[in-house]
């Protein structure tokens, strides 16, 4: 029934709006930025001279581009975030699981930071870190302080994910282990952790991807200081793209390099875990 041609194009009509927008704001936008990365580009004046690979060269080779410094700071931040998340959210979930009645209430309370705008949290912690001895004043403690904020913000969210993962573990495995005489640590090591592999991978990957993109807390609290210790890659890109004249091409190049780094990482982790048939997509 219906005109066969019309039938043929109907599916495309359904997917057109979503695919169109997604296409424009991924492929097209990345294409334009790729073009810009080979030029001197000013947000106001537009493209000027073609500079070839100069922006990339400057990012990778010249120390005053601070690209590698930013990447280093970002990697430190990511590492601290991952460790922090695993050390807080997993024990929290394990403990919370034991509680029968209050679980929902605790989930709600722990979840508050995830639904509060990052700007608000940054403004509050700006002072809290000051009260705790001026953590943002010293190059040694500023980045860890930001990591603490990140971990604190994500604790509830990750705890809920771990809770869901823990709930999936069949209890009879624990029963069998107890019958065999395994103590709690043994149970944890040989049942909980392996069965949580999916969740652990998921949480780690999501934390890494999120931590690579930290911006709001730096922008609000430290502006990259003190002594560039909190200058993360998103901040370097932002300053060069929007606050400085004529360096949007350079910023685009830096953003592409960042994308390459994240892409390589995600590719590696997908490859490593593909064979284990962990999850799809």
């Amino acid at each position: 029934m219906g005109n066969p041609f019309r039938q043929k194009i109907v599916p495309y009509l359904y997917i057109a709006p979503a695919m169109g927008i997604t296409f424009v704001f991924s492929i097209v936008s990345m294409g334009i930025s790729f073009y810009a990365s080979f030029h001197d580009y000013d947000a106001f004046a537009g493209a000027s001279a073609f500079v070839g690979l100069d922006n990339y060269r400057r990012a990778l080779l010249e120390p005053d581009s601070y690209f590698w410094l930013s990447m280093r700071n970002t990697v430190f931040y990511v590492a601290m975030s991952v460790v922090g998340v695993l050390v807080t959210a997993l024990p929290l979930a394990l403990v919370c699981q034991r509680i029968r009645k209050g679980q929902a209430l605790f989930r709600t309370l722990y979840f508050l930071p995830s639904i509060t705008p990052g700007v608000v949290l940054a403004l509050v912690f700006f002072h809290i870190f000051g009260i705790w001895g001026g953590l943002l004043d010293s190059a040694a403690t500023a980045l860890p302080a930001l990591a603490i904020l990140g971990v604190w913000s994500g604790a509830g969210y990750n705890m809920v994910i771990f809770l869901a993962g823990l709930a999936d573990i069949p209890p009879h495995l624990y029963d069998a282990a107890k019958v065999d005489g395994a103590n709690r640590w043994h149970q944890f090591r040989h049942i909980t952790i392996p069965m949580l592999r999916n969740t652990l991978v998921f949480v780690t990957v999501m934390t890494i991807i999120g931590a690579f993109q930290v911006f709001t807390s730096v922008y609000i609290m430290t502006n990259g200081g003190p002594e560039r210790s909190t200058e993360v890659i998103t901040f370097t890109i932002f300053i060069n793209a929007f606050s400085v004249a004529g360096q949007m091409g350079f910023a685009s190049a830096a953003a592409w390099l960042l994308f390459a780094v994240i892409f390589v990482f995600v590719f590696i982790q997908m490859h490593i875990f593909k064979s284990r048939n962990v999850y799809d997509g």
Partner: protein
Amino acid sequence: MVETVRRLPLFALVFMLLGTLVMVYPYAYMVGSSFKSRREFAEDKSSLIPPRYQIGEQLKHRRGESSALDWPGSDWALFRNYTDAIQYGRVDRYLANSFIYAVVITAVQLFINALAAYAFARMRFPGRDALFMFLLATMMIPTAVQLIPNFLVIRALGLVDTVWGVFVPGFAGAFGIFLLRQSFLNIPSELEHAARIDGCGSWGIFWHVILPLSKPVLITLGLFTFMGAWNMFEWPLVVLSNQDYYPLTVGLSFFRQESAADWPRIFAAGVMGAAPLIVLFLIAQRYLVGGISLSGMKT
């Protein structure tokens, strides 16, 4: 459920309660400081209760000793910072803007994502799988990397510093298509056949069968999208200049300089900015918390 050790819940409870204090402390600090006068905040940054209400200070005042009640501004009305934030800081405008951005983005995203998800789930057409793979691939582009590219596109379209400049990139949501497709795949096809027999075309099936049956996932996805749109910061920061269009997040970040670092007022604005989502969350938490498990783990 096997109840292994009975004494554990007490330890667990205490542990969780301590953790709750850690979670809630910054909020208590923000709310408490939002009631302080400027002088009180400068003198006493760390207390949760404004000095003029503290029992210790009241007693000192009664005894005739110098206390917080002698400071200028000791008659600061309780909600003065809130009214100042609205009157001088126009926080109500920013809040309303955030609301509009979030509602419109959510509504449009849900609609076009559902359309696309329905086609991917239920229709066969050449290129379907390739296009879907492409969609998944775009999910891998981190948002930070998309900032400049999106700006360049919006600039080319002439939408910089407009409300549409904020809306349009927000309409893209590959994740939603993915989630909805999963959910639509689970709807039994007999229902669809029955509807066809009744004379429904694809639109009819979509509107009368698929959507009503997908209410829970739509609500969950809608809530997530709403919260994500409400908390948008980098993108509006970059694309907007006109103060009238700022959502609350951007407005707050500028508030600090505009109010010349009047921190109690800034905190009052922060409370007003955080409250709507918290209220929404409390009302709808069943969907949200369940939704995380849904989004995270299941396939």
